[in-house]
């Protein structure tokens, strides 16, 4: 036991000696969550638009005012012919152009109606459709209000509720995602690097000839990283809770237990990687391409899985992060208990055992 403790201490010294990495390790999630908690919103603000108004009458002026007042749009220029639109798009000055047709006000009450054309820069398709939707709903509302004075057509009104995240804060998605990524980064990537580093430096050989049991040695290597990543996760949770008011509806102890389970899964992946590589660079590349990218891209952190092609959806099912994200989102944002997420938990346990078995099989007692 004492020996194992000495190994754990040695590992801590290794980690604490490298101040810069440590600062980055803890600073990175801090900066990321602060920046993106504030930066990633889904509200369009001050999208730049151009107006081409052939009528310049009272109604069009009122409608342009409505656009400006909504806060979504900012009119950068009033132009007087269509060719200027193309030029503005090509310089990237505007995202959208609104064209009011001739004799707007007089044609409003005619049977044909007045014409409005909206041209959007659809090189970003989602922003384009959102902007078009906003413009048309602002205009439609304007006309509806005008018409209500004349008649009362049957109109279905809608009301909506954003469940689980009323203000559409990106940070609600970001906190669970960031915890997942950090646990993966610290546990898997750091362990694999630290083990291969010993291989590269030759100190691994020294340890292997010591009377320590290899599994005990590996185990004591894991403990510091387990603590580090756990600490990191807690910092993110606290920040999310107190700075961004991300709720924690479910049970905290269940959440922490699931975190530890996931850390074990990531650690077993880290050992697996280090057992099949000899150099730090390869280990880095493997963890980046094999662990980080899938955990970020395919887990449902940034992009909804259901929108991916089928083969990627299947791939996402073997990534532990996918299951962990479901669990952590359910606990934090929906307040689910173990009775809802037992299946996902079992899958992570299964994956952990699988990775552990493979890495034990692969781990070589001897160097070449």
């Amino acid at each position: 036991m004492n020996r194992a403790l000495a190994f754990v201490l040695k590992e801590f010294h290794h980690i604490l000696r490298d101040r810069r990495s440590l600062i980055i390790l803890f600073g990175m999630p801090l900066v990321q969550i602060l920046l993106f908690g504030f930066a990633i919103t889904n509200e369009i603000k001050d999208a730049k638009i151009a107006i081409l108004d052939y009528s310049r009458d009272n109604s069009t002026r009122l409608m342009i005012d409505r656009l400006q007042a909504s806060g979504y749009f900012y009119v950068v220029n009033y132009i007087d012919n269509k060719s200027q639109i193309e030029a503005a798009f090509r310089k990237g000055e505007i995202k959208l152009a609104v064209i009011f047709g001739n004799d707007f006000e007089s044609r409003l009450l005619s049977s044909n109606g007045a014409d409005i054309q909206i041209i959007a820069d659809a090189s970003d398709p989602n922003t384009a459709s959102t902007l078009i939707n906003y413009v048309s709903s602002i205009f439609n509302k304007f006309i509806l209000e005008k018409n209500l004075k004349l008649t009362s057509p049957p109109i279905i009104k809608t009301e909506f509720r954003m469940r689980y995240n009323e203000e559409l804060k990106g940070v609600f998605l970001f906190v669970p995602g960031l915890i997942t990524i950090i646990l993966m980064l610290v546990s898997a990537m750091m362990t694999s690097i630290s083990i291969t580093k010993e291989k590269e430096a030759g100190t691994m050989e020294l340890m292997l000839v010591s009377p320590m049991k290899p599994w005990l040695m590996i185990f004591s290597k894991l403990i510091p990283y387990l603590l580090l990543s756990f600490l990191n996760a807690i910092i993110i949770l606290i920040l999310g809770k107190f700075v961004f008011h991300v709720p924690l509806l479910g049970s905290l102890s269940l959440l922490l237990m699931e975190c530890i389970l996931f850390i074990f899964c990531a650690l077993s992946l880290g050992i697996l990687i280090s057992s099949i590589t000899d150099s730090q660079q390869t280990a880095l590349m493997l963890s980046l391409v094999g662990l980080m990218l899938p955990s970020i891209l395919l887990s449902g952190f940034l992009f909804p899985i259901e929108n991916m092609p089928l083969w990627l959806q299947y791939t996402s099912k073997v990534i532990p992060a996918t299951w962990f994200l479901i669990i952590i989102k359910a606990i934090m944002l929906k307040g689910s208990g173990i009775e809802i997420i037992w299946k996902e938990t079992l899958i992570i346990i299964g994956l952990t055992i699988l990775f552990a078995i493979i890495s034990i099989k692969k781990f070589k007692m001897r160097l070449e």
Partner: protein
Amino acid sequence: MRTILFLIEKEFKQIFRNKGMLPIIFIMPLIQLIILANSATYDIKNLNIYFVDKDMSSLSLILRNKFTAVEYFKIAGFSQSQVEAEKFLDNGKADLYIEIPANFERNLYKNQLQSMPKLLIVLNAINGSQAGLGLNYANAIIGDFNSTLISNKILQSNVAIPIQTNTININYSNWYNPELNYYTFMVPGILVILVTMIATFLSGMNIVREKEIGTIDQINVTPIHKYQFLIGKLTPLWILGMFELAFGLAASLLIYDIPFVGSLFVLFTFTAIYLLACLGLGLLISSSSENQQQAMFISWFIMMIFILLGGLFTAIETMPTWVQFITFLNPVRYFIEVIRLVMLKGSGFADIKFHFIIISIFAIILNLLAVIRYKKTS
């Protein structure tokens, strides 16, 4: 000059001796293009929608059918119970539900302002942008339904002269990507990420690796000047970066049917300057780090911020104003703008001259800092 050539030759040998390099050069772009382009999609097709139909009238059926007809929505089920709908939302089987109130049809035709029925749309908003788009689509369908109702009413009222109302015809066109193809939007941005990552990571790991192995001391004792050394380091990576763009561009034009409207020359000229900025950044990281692990962490950290604030995944317009100001300091932002402008809109030098000026300033400052920071003595 000869010294520089020798240094370049040495760098090339070192790069290609590394067995890990070939996969990085050829396979990474393909993986990124295929996986990233397909996974990074907010192109929403299959939102699962559930209906709480407390009316069960013919009109509510017509409304529900309107949702079946579009490709954005998939009907997850319907019932008369809101509790059931909440359950669907809770376990993720539905992304949104719409509640049609009782007496929906009757109240609608009563035609009185205060009794107009209200539909309730409830969305799972954990992913805010998905919820926002879902709401947009749903509102568009209901708006459409509304206008059919209005024209029907005018028909029903059977008056020779229909009620005089204000009408506008809004028609819209989506320029540069009329089919709203998501690949057209994503793939150019992915090429930027690809070039940036290759250049920054490779140069970031470069000098620090020599430090770690100890070979840097051997170079330091030679009469090679700082600038010669750095030019020797930069040139091979610069060539590699240009090659990477060409390869990625060719692959993406082959795999995805993406238009290339503008001029290759403009794009490659910009890339040439942009790569200098990336390499300068990488060298700066490399000369400020003590070991490869640190260099890796710092590059990863900076990359992550650059990419997320670059306008690739979330449009810059959706960020708060102060963050929009921060993005002006992000070189990735300019390249993403330029590649979209050139590829999709055919912008020329005159259109993007500011981008050129700004990225040149970046290149000069970053490389100056790298030269100053790199010391020949340890």
